[in-house]
């Protein structure tokens, strides 16, 4: 029997490496540094500051000093401590909400792939969610559940579901028409096996990018909800509630708004840069 010689196994670019390569650009590195520094600051909050974020002090609206590096707020709470703990609250909210939204969206997209009727229902469901402006959606959910931490998680997850769902649905529609999907069916694989084993792994790549986008949108939504007083209940600090609380003192104590704003901006910018870097990596 003649045996063909095989190509020598040259170092290959696996799809995962494309993302790693994307992260190793200036965008990726800047994004990682921004997100990393903010996240680390949040995680290390108990060690970085001794002040209790909720403890009220005698000095209200004090300027920066040795005891309060960023000063205090209108009822004398340490601003630095509140920001650091606020980061932790924000991160814990988006890191629950976004994966939940992604999972629900992906599950719905797979459901849509099973039949034309299911597709119709799921698609209209996505349309329904998308047709509400984000704020109205937020108001509706808090009207039912009241303000708090979990409603914020639910709102963010709900807002992200259609984006993840549509993205995956589009990928599935493309991939399942490819010949390898037909080959799998001809080989005897059932519909579920073709979908989960062959089509899905080839369609999930864009969701990685969508995930990074969703994280930045999550920070944004949390901020907006807290700003309107629909977010996490006080006194627990979040980045959004810190900004909202500072508005009354914008002309007298601008630092009160500037510090949490800077952190929020860094976080959103970091996630956006990461998304962009991953996206470019995937396309290269």
């Amino acid at each position, binding site marked *: 029997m003649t045996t*063909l010689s095989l190509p020598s196994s040259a170092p290959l670019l696996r799809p995962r490496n494309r993302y790693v390569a994307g992260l190793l650009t200036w965008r990726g590195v800047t994004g990682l540094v921004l997100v990393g520094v903010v996240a680390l600051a949040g995680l290390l909050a108990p060690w970085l500051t001794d002040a209790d974020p909720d403890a009220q002090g005698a000095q209200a609206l004090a300027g920066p000093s040795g005891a309060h590096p960023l000063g205090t707020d209108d009822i004398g709470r340490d601003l630095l401590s509140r920001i650091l703990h606020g980061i932790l609250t924000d991160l814990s909210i988006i890191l629950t909400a976004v994966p939940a939204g992604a999972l629900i969206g992906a599950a719905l997209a797979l459901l849509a792939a099973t039949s034309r009727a299911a597709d119709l229902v799921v698609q209209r469901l996505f349309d329904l969610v998308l047709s509400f402006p984000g704020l109205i959606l937020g108001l509706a959910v808090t009207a039912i559940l009241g303000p708090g931490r979990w409603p914020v998680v639910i709102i963010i997850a709900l807002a992200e579901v259609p984006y993840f769902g549509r993205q995956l649905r589009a990928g599935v529609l493309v991939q399942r028409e490819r010949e*390898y999907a037909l080959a799998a069916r001809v080989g005897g694989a059932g519909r579920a096996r073709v979908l989960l084993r062959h089509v899905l792994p080839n369609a999930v790549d864009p969701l990685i990018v969508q995930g990074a986008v969703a994280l930045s949108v999550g920070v944004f939504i949390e901020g907006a909800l807290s700003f309107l007083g629909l977010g996490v209940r006080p006194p627990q600090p979040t980045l959004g509630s810190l900004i909202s609380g500072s508005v009354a003192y914008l002309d007298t104590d601008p630092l009160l708004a500037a510090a949490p704003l800077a952190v929020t901006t860094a976080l959103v910018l970091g996630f956006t840069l990461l998304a962009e870097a991953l996206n470019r990596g995937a396309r290269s």
Partner: protein
Amino acid sequence: MTELIDRPPLVEQPPSPTAELLRVRELHVSFGERAAVRGVDFALGAGESLGIVGESGSGKSTTALALLRMLPAGGRITGGSVELDGRDLAALPEEALRAVRGKRIAMIFQDPMSSLNPVLSVGRQLDEALRAHGERRPKAERASRAVELLELVGVPKAASRLGDFPHQFSGGQRQRIMIALALAHDAQVLVADEPTTALDPTVQRQILRLLARINRERGTALVVISHDLGVIAETCSRLLVMRDGEVVEQGATTLLLTAPRHSYTRTLLAAVPRLDAPSRAAANSTPGAEPLLVVRGLAKGYGPRRRRNAALESVDLELHPGETLGLVGESGSGKSTLARALVGAHAPDAGGISFAGQPLDGRRARREIQMVFQDPYASLNPRLTVGRIIAEPLIAHRVGDRAQRQARVAELLEQVGLEASAAARSPREFSGGQRQRIGIARALAPEPSVLVCDEPVSALDVSIQAQVIDLLARLQRELGLAVLFIAHDLAVVRQVSHRIAVLHRGRIVESGPADRVVTAPEHPYTAELLAAVPSLPTPTAGSLL
């Protein structure tokens, strides 16, 4: 501006062979570190025709694109020159080059479906081409010129079709429109990169004749790039054979095809299946008497119920064990629909399929009838290893445990001529021919008795084609497989088949022993198909040894 239409044809006074219009000297093109073209040298006189032939990766298309310096990103001319009328295009600034493109050298591409802008009418696109290069002419004059161009390339009722959009034309007509666009400025050189690869043989013949006519009557020098020697033989007087970025041989087409000097040209010629060669199937296996697979009145349509497009009207077919049935037909004849219905991927609208005397049910079909696909790239899941790809049908049919499946995969890989160690690799590490072998191994995994091969070799180079055909023949001999061999290439089909069936508009119009169908067709459509096959001159005795 000399008018293409008004200019007298050059038939009377053939250009002298010394009049060099295009001269390519020591052309080198690299993509990064990799040299794609290495020292290509040729000259083209006014009104001459030159064919460039080679297998994939030989650098033939890169050479064509380098003529206009339209190389894809990363590609760059690293040496040599392309002289048009003594002016070196390779050294020209981009702005000056723009004045040459389309005006002096024009190009037509492979895929007429995607080369025309779908949202602009054909008239608009012609008008745009006519307005390029800063020509100012009244609108009415441009319109009448557009009509002339369309008539020149043989689009019927040209005047009334200017307002039509590309999707309203057939593939062949779209390629004609592409040629009309290329001729808008009466270019001296027309470069055609695989101009008919995406077209059916009958349409291919029309386009090749059109190109030859333009070359003959208008004196436009022609460069045709193709992997198909038959196409070149029909259109070009001179031939250039490329391999690995180098020219291995060039000379007059008839001479090169009948008495090739270089060994590579000889192997290339020997690998081309010829329509006049008799079927080799009888020597390979003898079909059984009882039909294994019987198809009766199979019909299948697409689209909504009211405006249903019938892909298969009513197909009757019999396949015997150990037999190869060649199925030929043009695009849209229903070949692929039939293949998919047979393997159970589509439910037919009417009619029935019976296997070994019993109606076929889905589960059985998926085990007994397996399929080999056309595209060796798209048909293997890029996320799985070769071993997993081949084991998938075994897992689906719950055959054996993990160790047994692994052993079976190794056995299958050996059977198709690959090393067992290939199982751990990713499919993208393999060449097209090797990938097709992997696809065949996957099809053989559940031990089927019928193999449906949908254009299994049309995406492969001729030398690889021959290897895959040999492999299929050997597997048939060893395993007694019944093979339904679907292809558009009649020469290949005759070579491998015991019987040939001709599919036309969803019906089998003729079927019979392979040699008889080719030599004495009964149906006029079969005769038309046969006449459209580009023929190669027969090599003189001994030249192919």
